[in-house]
């Protein structure tokens, strides 16, 4: 089943005493690809693009996550996206790059609660603790490629392409209930 972004409203989607899954408010998502000296893009975006895979950078409400040697995901409030794109267009002549608005492609689930890490192990082959607080990664979650941002010891954001969202939400909902049953 495909799920347009409008299928979910930002709210708590699954909750128990030990873990919670909610939907984040929409934001602008920009996919950036570039190689070489990144200084012009850093100046345009007002932040230093991290160069180690998994590292993040933040400036105000804009965030960048390094996904690959030449690839980043940028999140920002929707009102700032047009300005960021215009600023990057300005430096295209000095540093050719690809900046694509993918805001309509995915939704973000916010995972928190004392057993959020255990909830992740349900679909994640790698150890969630191999991702440090303040970092992020593109990972495999139950066969689906997702972005995982670790905001705290037990606080995560998961960006999911919306066609996969109902499947993953169902899986996470099951996990939230199962972990609560274990605790009871």
């Amino acid at each position, binding site marked *: 089943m495909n799920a347009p972004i409008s299928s979910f409203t930002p709210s708590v989607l699954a909750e128990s005493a030990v873990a919670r899954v909610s939907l984040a408010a929409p934001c602008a998502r920009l996919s950036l690809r570039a190689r070489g000296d990144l200084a012009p893009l850093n100046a345009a975006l007002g932040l230093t693009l991290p160069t180690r*895979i998994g590292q993040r950078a933040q400036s105000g409400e804009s965030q960048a996550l390094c*996904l690959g040697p030449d*690839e980043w995901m940028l999140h920002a409030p929707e009102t700032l996206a047009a300005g960021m794109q215009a600023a990057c267009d300005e430096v295209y002549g000095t540093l050719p790059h690809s900046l694509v608005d993918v805001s309509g492609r995915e939704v973000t689930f916010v995972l928190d609660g004392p057993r959020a890490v255990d909830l992740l192990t349900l679909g994640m*082959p790698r150890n969630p603790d191999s991702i440090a607080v303040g970092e992020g*990664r*593109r*990972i*495999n979650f139950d066969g689906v*490629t997702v972005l995982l941002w670790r905001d705290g010891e037990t606080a995560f954001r998961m960006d999911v392409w919306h066609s996969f969202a109902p499947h993953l939400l169902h899986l996470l909902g099951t996990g939230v209930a199962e972990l609560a049953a274990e605790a009871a």
Partner: protein
Amino acid sequence: MLLIHCPYCEETLPEAEFTYAGQAHVIRPENPSGQTDDQWEEFLFIRANPKGPHYERWRHFHGCGRFFNAVRDTVSDKFLTTYKAGAPRPDLSSLTEGLK
């Protein structure tokens, strides 16, 4: 599950994040029209299929997305090394030294 070291992420991660992508170091001829049918067949279809160390491509699909090369023993499934795409083919004796 196999654990595979991604030379771009510099992390050793579960096989489920990776996809296999065939034999490595198969080089497309500069001038395909200059090839004989036999040479072209060799390029397209003929692969080594060794019993033992095999130079092969993998892709960190659910991760950095990069293709890279690996030397894997097809008998033990042990990865002898992984290295970035475009890096020279490592010498086999340097990889197997520690195993003897």
